[in-house]
């Protein structure tokens, strides 16, 4: 770890190949090699910049214009400034959806992370049919959501569906998992965790793959318990990967449309309406493009703030 950190620190100062020195970006003369680094970096990142501008830049600007106008998909409409934003921010459904989005995201991110981590750790050890389990456990992520949402509906929707029937047989009444607002919210969150944990498991597995087993052997020799190994070796080693997977999963959860829309449609009575579902309904069902896109922008801004905070954490974790 310490070597890595020191090297990263050196790299940050612009130490290029061959150990040439001199902080980049200062008035001091740069070495040819660090200029080469700059050029190579520019060359390496160029394709990504071009694609970004081509595919994502235009829709972003287009959406920005829509958010400031009072139009529909075919007609830009009149310029209304920030009216869409203020009307959205003062509406009750927006805040209700924001609250649900928060719950959905927190459960989605940490639920899937905990399960993914536990499974990745277990699967890292030697157990029979290890490889088969790894593949089988990725299936929830593989199945098209339009199909898995139907399966979940089939398991939970009516009083005679298997899961309510099981509860009934256990003497727990007949819960209507999608009809009761609270239960529907819980079911949607569980559905999201079910879809997402394989991604977490994969991210953590691949981070763990780069961890050398001898580190554990050495610490075993020193008498460290498995729990100590977990908290003092494993977690720090995968911390950066963990932060990144949290950020990514936060985006996936906040932006997740099909999971919610196909399972509950946002109901009953908006109990499972997240911001993106609300935005979709505004644009494509109520045909109010401006407010709908404004919601999307507000979501994005919130995400950016959250991500900057998490991003700082990443920086910290790599410099500590």
């Amino acid at each position, binding site marked *: 770890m310490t070597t890595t950190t020191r090297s990263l620190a050196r790299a940050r100062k612009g130490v290029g190949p061959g150990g040439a020195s001199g902080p980049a970006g200062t008035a001091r003369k740069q070495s040819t090699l660090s200029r080469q680094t700059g050029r190579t970096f520019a060359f390496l990142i160029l*394709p990504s910049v071009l694609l970004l501008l081509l595919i994502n830049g235009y829709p972003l600007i287009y959406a920005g214009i829509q958010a400031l106008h009072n139009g529909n998909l*075919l007609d830009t409409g009149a310029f209304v400034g920030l009216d869409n934003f203020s009307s959205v921010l003062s509406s009750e459904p927006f805040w209700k959806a924001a609250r649900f989005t928060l719950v959905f995201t927190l459960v989605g991110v940490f639920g899937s992370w905990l399960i993914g981590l536990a499974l990745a750790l277990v699967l890292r050890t030697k157990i029979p049919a290890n490889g088969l389990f790894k593949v089988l456990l990725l299936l929830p992520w593989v199945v098209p959501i339009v199909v898995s949402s139907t399966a979940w509906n089939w398991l939970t929707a009516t*009083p005679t569906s298997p899961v309510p029937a099981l509860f009934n047989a256990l003497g727990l009444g007949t819960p209507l998992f999608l009809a009761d607002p609270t239960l529907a919210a819980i079911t949607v969150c569980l559905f999201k965790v079910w879809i997402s944990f394989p991604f977490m498991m994969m991210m953590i597995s691949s981070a763990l793959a780069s961890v050398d087993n001898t580190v554990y052997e050495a610490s075993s020799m020193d008498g460290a318990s498995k729990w100590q190994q977990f908290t003092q070796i494993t977690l720090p080693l995968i911390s950066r990967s963990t932060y990144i997977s949290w950020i990514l999963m936060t985006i996936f959860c906040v932006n997740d449309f099909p999971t919610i829309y196909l*399972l509950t449609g946002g*109901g009953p*009575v*908006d109990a499972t309406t997240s911001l993106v579902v609300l935005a979709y309904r505004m644009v*494509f069902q*109520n045909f109010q493009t401006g407010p709908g896109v404004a919601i999307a922008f507000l979501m994005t801004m919130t995400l950016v703030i959250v991500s900057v905070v998490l991003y700082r954490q990443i920086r910290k974790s790599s410099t500590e």
Partner: protein
Amino acid sequence: MTIKSALSTSAFSRRGFLGVAAAAASVPLLAACGGGSASQGAGGTIKFWDMPWGPPAYSDLAKKLTESYVPTGSLGKASYQTIQWNNFYQTFSSAIASKTGPALSTGGGFQAFQFAEQGQIAYADNVISKLKQNGQYNDFLPGTIESQNTDKGYVAVPWSQGPRVVWYRKSLLDRAGVAVPTDWKSWLEAGKALKGIGVSAFGIGAGAGNVFGNQNLLSMMINNGGGLFNEDGRPDVVTDRNIEAMEFVREMVSLGLIDPGAVSYTLDNLSSQWKDKKIGMGWYAPGLPESTGDTSGDLQVASPLAGPHGDKGTVNYIGSIMMYKNTPSQEGSEAFLLWYLGQLKEFWKQDVVGLLPVQQSIVDLPEFQKNKQNVQIIKEWQSVGKPFGTKSPRLFGSLAAVDGGQALSQFAQTMLGARADAKTALTDLQKGIESVTK
């Protein structure tokens, strides 16, 4: 960029993982596929976009018919394209905005009105006057063509209709020992008996993507002489008749005559409840036996039920074919539309569509007369059917935002989940509709 990709590609394939070489080899294939698409019609071809209105056989037949069209003179031939229901509004809007849209299409219930207000529709007045000239106008059932009229002209020509009607399962009513209800009062009594045998008396569902929830409640309002709009076309939801109708529904909910899970039932849940004999009675579209696969004759259409004041009624959705301004030739569009209207009978002759016809000549076909339930719907329900925008004399574009929009589905869920009393729920609905129709 190309150099970079090439470099890393070669580095990757040397190691041979992920079958990168195979994928790279498929790139030219990909380019080849791009060129061969059928939709880049030649100039002059009339593009007709249609929704999947029935089983795959429907789309096959519609395609065959469209492609068999032989234009007169120099007018263009026609091409056929099925548009999936999923996100169809997005599909139409983006195509129209980029001038790659169709010349004619079917679509959502109020799509023609909506696109007309956005200046995209070519009005069908010429077609209507030609129908009047050749006498076909009188073949259309009363109220069907007129439903498409606006101040600026006819936005479309009707081709089908789907009134919501009351169905019942005869064996279950027999088992409960009740006769087929004729009014709301006897419905409630029959419902109690049905509940006694563990069967729902008002099958309905308002889950993800299921519009029957709000359509059925609207049918109840119209049944009681109510509706969502007043004579000036303004939202007018909190009326005595509507409150009375919704209180009746609330009573059914509180008596347990409506399934407590109904609030979350998707279309599939609802249709399997019908199929599994869990529902004794309820509103549904024409073709319930066919869509549940139970054509034994046990599922039958009731006569229109009388409300507390003796009113009868239901909501009737008219399916229409609209023409767009973006066409290679307006004359060509009109010629195709006139021809296509004459071919519609084939859908009912071959029994591939779930909707009902709007032309008397099709109703009279022996193939149509065979289906007793559909005949009864035309005979008894067509005349009491009202358009969605009733009592507004004209339909209009923002109805698209009301029908299947947030306000109505939320209303249906509130009612079925018994989350508010009828008046409060209707007041919220009024606000919701006002916000999308301003």
